[in-house]
């Protein structure tokens, strides 16, 4: 019973199956919408299928017990499989090559040396080892000298290194999932914050230090898309300013194992926006705070400063207004450029708006993360590289060169060899050997 289980766990069939199941999991995860509320599935698929999806966790498949247990099974399979085969491989690596096995290799080259040439035999060995490495030399029957070579045998360890690194990567991911967290922090210039908004599960988390946003800067391409943005941060611990750092996109900052990523920003007015409103011949000024409804003078409609952009199509900052004229129905949305010397987009009227004063500031959105598993994952990545190298790019070959004394002081030299899948490496080596041997004659 137990041995049946072990056989199952160490079988390559199970490996093929789990690889296949993981692929199917990914397929479901990308084709079936993920992370939607229950009603969504109910509406889209009907009661019964929706219930099945929900029960199986397919609506959030990458965290469903089903998917995680396939990953678990793969890890078990990998570990078991490697444990089972590794001792055999290690034994093979340490063992001395036995001539009996080499004699059965296919014969590749044959050369006869006459007595006159026999002198050049003396440097045969050094010639061979220059191209094949250090031989094991054995003297066999009929005074035949065997030079046995094993090339690239360490390549055998490649698959095990690959498997090990996959296990390391999975462990690192687990570590991060168990002990890590991720949240957001939104700061206005000058503001200090230390409470994160977590999204998964939703909640709040205080940090044991504070972060102050000293300055936020954003630069734009001529067409108005952001080119670069950065936050100048100061970390404050126990009332002391401990460290200053610049956080950019693609260039996060780590403080006490917690990493800050520049993720978003938002333009905000510092105080109110000053608007100039013209109706017929009369002009007023209006102090309009963000998202506050203001009645226009004489009750002739209302306006709200709805949104701000720091740069619209390369034309600089702009304010989006929601405006309803007297007796109008739904409010109308339109943009007003802050730079009033520019040609303005059309306005519905009858009121015409201009921006008289806009003091822009920014809030910076930081993604804050703690993940103790990242370095483990990276270690796995690095381990993978020599693993690949050994498994796929180190040709494994075995060669034997037999030197047999013939009558009249001559010798015959026979080369035997096999290579693995890399036929061309083998062919090249064979051609090289042929050249070397022919020089002897």
């Amino acid at each position, binding site marked *: 019973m137990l041995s049946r289980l072990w056989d199952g766990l160490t079988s*390559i069939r199970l*490996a*093929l199956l789990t*690889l*296949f199941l*993981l*692929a199917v999991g*990914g*397929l479901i*995860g*990308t084709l079936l919408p*993920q992370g939607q509320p229950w009603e969504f599935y109910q509406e889209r698929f009907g009661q019964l299928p929706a219930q099945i999806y929900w029960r199986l966790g397919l609506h959030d498949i*990458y965290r469903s017990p089903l998917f995680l247990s396939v990953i678990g099974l793969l890890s078990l399979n990998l570990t078991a499989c490697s444990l089972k085969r590794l001792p055999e491989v290690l034994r093979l690596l340490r063992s001395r090559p036995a001539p009996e096995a080499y004699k059965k290799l296919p014969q590749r080259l044959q050369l006869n040396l006459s007595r006159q040439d026999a002198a050049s035999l003396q440097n045969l060995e050094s010639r061979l080892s220059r191209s094949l490495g250090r031989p094991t030399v054995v003297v066999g029957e009929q005074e035949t000298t065997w030079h046995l070579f094993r090339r690239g045998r360490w390549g055998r360890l490649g698959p095990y290194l690959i498997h090990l690194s996959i296990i390391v990567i999975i462990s690192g*991911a687990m570590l991060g999932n168990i002990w890590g967290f*991720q949240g957001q922090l939104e700061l206005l210039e000058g503001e200090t914050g230390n409470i994160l908004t977590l999204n998964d599960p939703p909640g709040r988390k205080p940090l044991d230090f504070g972060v102050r946003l000293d300055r936020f800067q954003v630069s734009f*391409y001529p*067409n108005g*898309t*952001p*080119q*670069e*943005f950065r936050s100048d941060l100061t970390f404050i611990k126990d009332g002391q300013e401990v460290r200053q750092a610049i956080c*950019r*996109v*693609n*260039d*996060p900052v780590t403080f006490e194992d917690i*990493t800050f*990523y520049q*993720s978003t920003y938002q333009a905000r007015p510092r105080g109110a926006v000053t608007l100039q409103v013209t109706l017929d011949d009369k002009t007023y000024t209006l102090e309009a705070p963000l998202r506050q409804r203001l009645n226009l003078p004489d009750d002739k409609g209302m306006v709200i400063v709805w949104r701000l952009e720091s740069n619209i199509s390369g034309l600089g900052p702009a304010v989006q207004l929601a405006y309803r004229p007297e007796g109008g129905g739904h409010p109308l949305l339109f943009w007003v450029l802050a730079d009033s010397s520019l040609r303005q987009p059309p306005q519905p009227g009858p009121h015409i708006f201009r921006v008289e004063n806009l003091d822009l500031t920014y809030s910076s959105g930081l*993604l804050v*993360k703690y993940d103790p598993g*990242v370095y483990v*994952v*990276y270690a796995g*990545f690095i381990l*993978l590289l020599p693993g*690949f190298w050994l498994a*796929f790019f180190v040709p494994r070959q075995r060669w034997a060169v037999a030197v047999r004394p013939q009558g009249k002081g001559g010798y015959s030299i026979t080369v035997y060899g096999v290579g693995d*899948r890399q*036929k*061309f490496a083998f062919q090249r080596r064979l051609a090289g050997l042929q050249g070397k041997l022919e020089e002897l004659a």
Partner: protein
Amino acid sequence: MSSKLLGWVVLFYFIGGLIFLVAAVFQQRQLNRIAQGATLLGFGVHTVSLLWRWLESHQMSIGRAPLSNFYESLVFFSWAVICVSYVSFWRQGRDYIGSFVAFLACLILAYASFGGHATQIMPLMPALKSNWLIIHVVTCFLGYAAFALGFGAALLYFFLARSANPGAKEKDSLRRAQELDELIYRAIVIGFFMLTLGILTGAVWAESAWGRYWSWDPKETWSLITWLIYALLLHARLVRGWQGKRIALLAVVGFMAVLFTYFGVSFLLPGLHAYLT
């Protein structure tokens, strides 16, 4: 303009493909060299055009590798197809597969040039400004190209296995089939290695740009699916000893996954990588 040169490249690849085909059908081995010459000439011009576009972007003070929209990725993909085939089998100069490769590169490039895609050099959004982007895209596309080569060899395998008529030619087609089987394997090893590097560098980049090395975004997930299929293929071949038709079939399935990762995800599924469209 760098993209003007590409018309010539399309032409050279087409001529190369045609001569390879003639060499294959009429068994004129000496023509292979001419076909190789034409294709390599195209490849040279192609390389110059890639470098030129890079230079142009610097002159426009945008300064970035030509790898970050759909058009540029197609142009690079086409380049990678030739590059990978050169590395993996050119020395033997096979006729049918050479023809497949040259025509494929020609087709991709023609689609890129005449398919109505935006070809201007656009500035990059901040998250894409990273050296990891270059390594990530280059490794992924070299991987895709190697898989395309494996796919071509698999198609030819089916084609040849069917036309294995009895008689004097049987031995010949058996040898062919063996060579193709070998080529499928070799292409897929290169592809698997490159895709692995692509996924790893992508993860490192995502970690530094978005704070997550893996977020199950559809493109990531599909590249993982692709990777799993090829891992499956390699184990089936190396450990269970599958060969021939079954491996060729898996190579076709794997390449379907590659195509979906490249095109399907960009056009059909939302996610981080949607900027490619």
